[in-house]
């Protein structure tokens, strides 16, 4: 007969077994010992997980083929189309991953702090890899809390795209250099329908539309995200209120409802109906990858690119912009760390490989040699983005243990603020600080 006691005992045992099983699932240790010298001969199989698909996956495959030619006894098993979610779960489940590539620098904080990617410092020291070959901003987003667990594999930089035909029509020959110039030009170039609704925009300041995000605006006023000790700097960095007040003032001059209605009716950002490509918006804040979209979706378009304008009292920052990029690391469960390191080193530091990837994927190369390589064939409009990459005024979003969560918190507040429902700016930013600190602070603070 099953008594109440035995039933309870069984349930308790089941819970205990479950808990033990769970504890057993996690926290596998990884062998971090590194040979004192790089192996003279490489052989074996190494796996590469990346997120690229279709045409882009073929570009990566061609570089992998080059690597296999260079090391004939090495076979690379490529898993394409693996996004951050899949990568995280696969590493957690202890799957056979040697090298993983992520499209997001936002993952660096989480992967470095959790140990999902190995510390690369021993390999870098042993093989005397010169880290100064990467721009400082790139170096900053590939490490977290002093731990370098990733290497940069191409970057995205942001700037201003402008439609030359529309600018010419309104008597402009040069793109704006300051935010007030951007606004006055944009307002002149904005046209309306008979019923008062917007027909075309000079620039769409609506937060949340296309690439209008806090992160991408930040470098225009030298706005900071985090303090040196990893706390939120949003509420104390003077750049943010400056940018927000400018943006809200711009929105108010056109009218929030009008802008909302117009933005809602525009085509998808990555479709051929994208408003910049259809001529509905004359100037946009965008990444270098847009050049590839225009090339394939609107080949005849006469457009130019320039660094994004700066806030009026930060003209010294002109030339910089937002930088982010792909990153790659060695998974904690890698069974062939030496092979993984060889592949990682090749993909991220070999000039011919980096140039080939940049030309194929139409992204910005991340090493100084590749940036100045005569083999780069990305076109004139791309030069702006190469220069943004070299600019000391370019900035990025710092890695955090909660990925991009802290940026989302701020974007949410900014979106509310532009609608007039955000309340007092100072108090709102203070609240954003609290929310971000809650999310990223360690155990004694709050939830992670």
């Amino acid at each position, binding site marked *: 007969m099953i008594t109440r006691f035995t039933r309870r005992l069984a349930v308790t045992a*089941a*819970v205990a077994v*479950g*808990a033990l*099983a*769970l*504890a057993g699932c*996690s*926290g596998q240790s990884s062998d971090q010992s590194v040979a004192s010298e790089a192996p003279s001969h490489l052989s074996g199989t190494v796996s590469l997980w990346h997120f690229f698909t279709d045409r882009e996956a073929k570009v990566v495959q061609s570089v992998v083929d080059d690597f296999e030619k260079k090391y004939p006894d090495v076979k690379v098993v490529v898993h394409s189309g693996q996004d*951050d*979610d899949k990568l*995280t*779960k696969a*590493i*957690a489940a202890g799957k056979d991953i040697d090298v993983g590539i992520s*499209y*997001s620098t*936002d993952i660096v904080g*989480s992967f470095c*702090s*959790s*140990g*999902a990617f190995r510390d690369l410092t021993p390999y870098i020291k042993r093989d005397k890899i010169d880290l100064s070959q990467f721009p400082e901003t790139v170096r900053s987003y590939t490490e977290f809390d002093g731990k370098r667990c990733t290497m940069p594999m191409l970057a995205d930089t942001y700037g201003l795209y402008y439609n030359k035909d529309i600018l010419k029509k309104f008597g402009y020959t040069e793109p704006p250099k300051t935010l007030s110039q951007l606004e006055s030009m944009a307002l002149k170039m904005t046209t309306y329908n008979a019923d008062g609704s917007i027909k075309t925009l000079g620039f769409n300041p609506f937060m*949340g539309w*296309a*690439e209008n*995000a*806090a992160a*991408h605006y930040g470098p225009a006023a030298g706005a900071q995200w985090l303090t040196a000790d990893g706390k939120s700097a949003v509420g104390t960095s003077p750049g943010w209120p400056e940018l927000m007040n400018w943006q809200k003032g711009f929105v108010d001059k056109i009218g929030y409802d009008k802008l*909302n*209605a*117009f*933005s*809602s*009716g*525009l*085509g*998808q*950002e*990555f479709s051929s109906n994208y408003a910049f490509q259809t001529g509905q918006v004359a100037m946009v804040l965008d990444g270098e990858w847009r050049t590839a979209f225009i090339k394939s979706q609107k080949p005849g378009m006469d457009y130019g690119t320039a660094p994004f304008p700066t806030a009026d009292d930060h003209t010294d920052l002109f030339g910089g912009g937002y930088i982010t990029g792909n990153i790659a690391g060695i998974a*904690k469960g890698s069974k062939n760390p030496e092979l993984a390191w060889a592949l990682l080193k090749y993909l991220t530091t070999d000039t011919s490989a980096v140039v080939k990837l940049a030309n194929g994927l139409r992204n910005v190369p991340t090493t100084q040699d590749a940036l100045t390589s005569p083999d780069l064939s990305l076109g004139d409009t791309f030069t702006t983005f190469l220069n943004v990459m070299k600019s000391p005024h370019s900035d990025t*979003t710092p890695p955090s*243990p*909660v*990925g*991009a*969560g802290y940026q*989302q918190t701020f*974007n*949410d507040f900014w979106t509310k603020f532009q*609608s007039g*429902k955000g309340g007092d700016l100072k108090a709102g930013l203070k*609240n954003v600080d609290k*929310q971000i600190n*809650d*999310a990223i602070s360690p*155990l004694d603070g*709050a*939830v*992670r």
Partner: protein
Amino acid sequence: MTAPAIARGAAGRAVDTTRPRRRRTSLRRRLTIAAFIAPSVLGLVIFFAYPLLASIYYSFTNFNLVSAPQWIGLRNYTYLFTEDPLIVTATLNTLWFVAILVPVRIVTAMGVAGLLARAKRASGFWRTLFYLPALVPPVASVVAFVFLFNPGTGPVNQVLAFFGIKGPLWFNDPAWSKPSLLLLGVWVMGDLMIIFLASLLDVPADQYEAASLDGANGLQKLRYVTYPNLIPVLVFAVITGVIAALQYFTEAAVASSVASGQATVGGSAAQVIGYPSDSLLTYTQWLYERGFANFQLGYASAMAVVLFVVAGLFLVLLLGRVKAFTPEGAR
């Protein structure tokens, strides 16, 4: 002790010779039953009990999926109930779908089923017509709806403009985004409608005849004949509807993503969860965001446990109050 009992049960038979065979038969029978049940039990343990226990355990930890979870006691729960800045918004949005979407869908499905039950001509055509939208995959139907209701280019606002009506911004306006999804929910109510229709057609005609003989009018027939016969289906619809609404995810997530005009590909800061202005941020989306974008699996587990408890309470409350599923109630 047992012999007399068996002797009593098998009156007049030889006790000693029948006992072993009966035991063998009984054992085989039990093993057969166990073998048939085993896959279900295994499935239940692997896909329900284990994940449930895992979630409960993780909900008391700080866990980022990769490194070992650290025990932090009730911290996740205190944060959830007292500090999480978006939990109230997400919960209220979810409750909106529970309180509005579920009854509207049920009433519409019942109404359409009632009309179809009376349809004499081309009834097959009408039933098919109303059921068809339920066959469309949720993602496809949301994408289609967002395009139809696009304030600038969508045909809905163009038709409204033809009649001189200025259409709203639908999925791009926080005040209209949830009602827009409500319209979608009503459009795809075919699955519920078909169940109500089957139940309506199953009501014995003699009960209506008896009611007519007693002088009952249409409303009284609805109240005293149709309604009692529909109760079991109604309870089923409410329970499954409430639980589905508590877990409302796909439609809201896809609507936010498509309506914002952004793609989440690339995973940059330009995320669109809850667009516009958190009006479509549901509890399960916030849970997913916390778990798989912020890597706060411990906290996400706490959210999941709370959702499980709330859904369980709804279930107990509804099943406890309605006797429709008990043998007595069914009589």
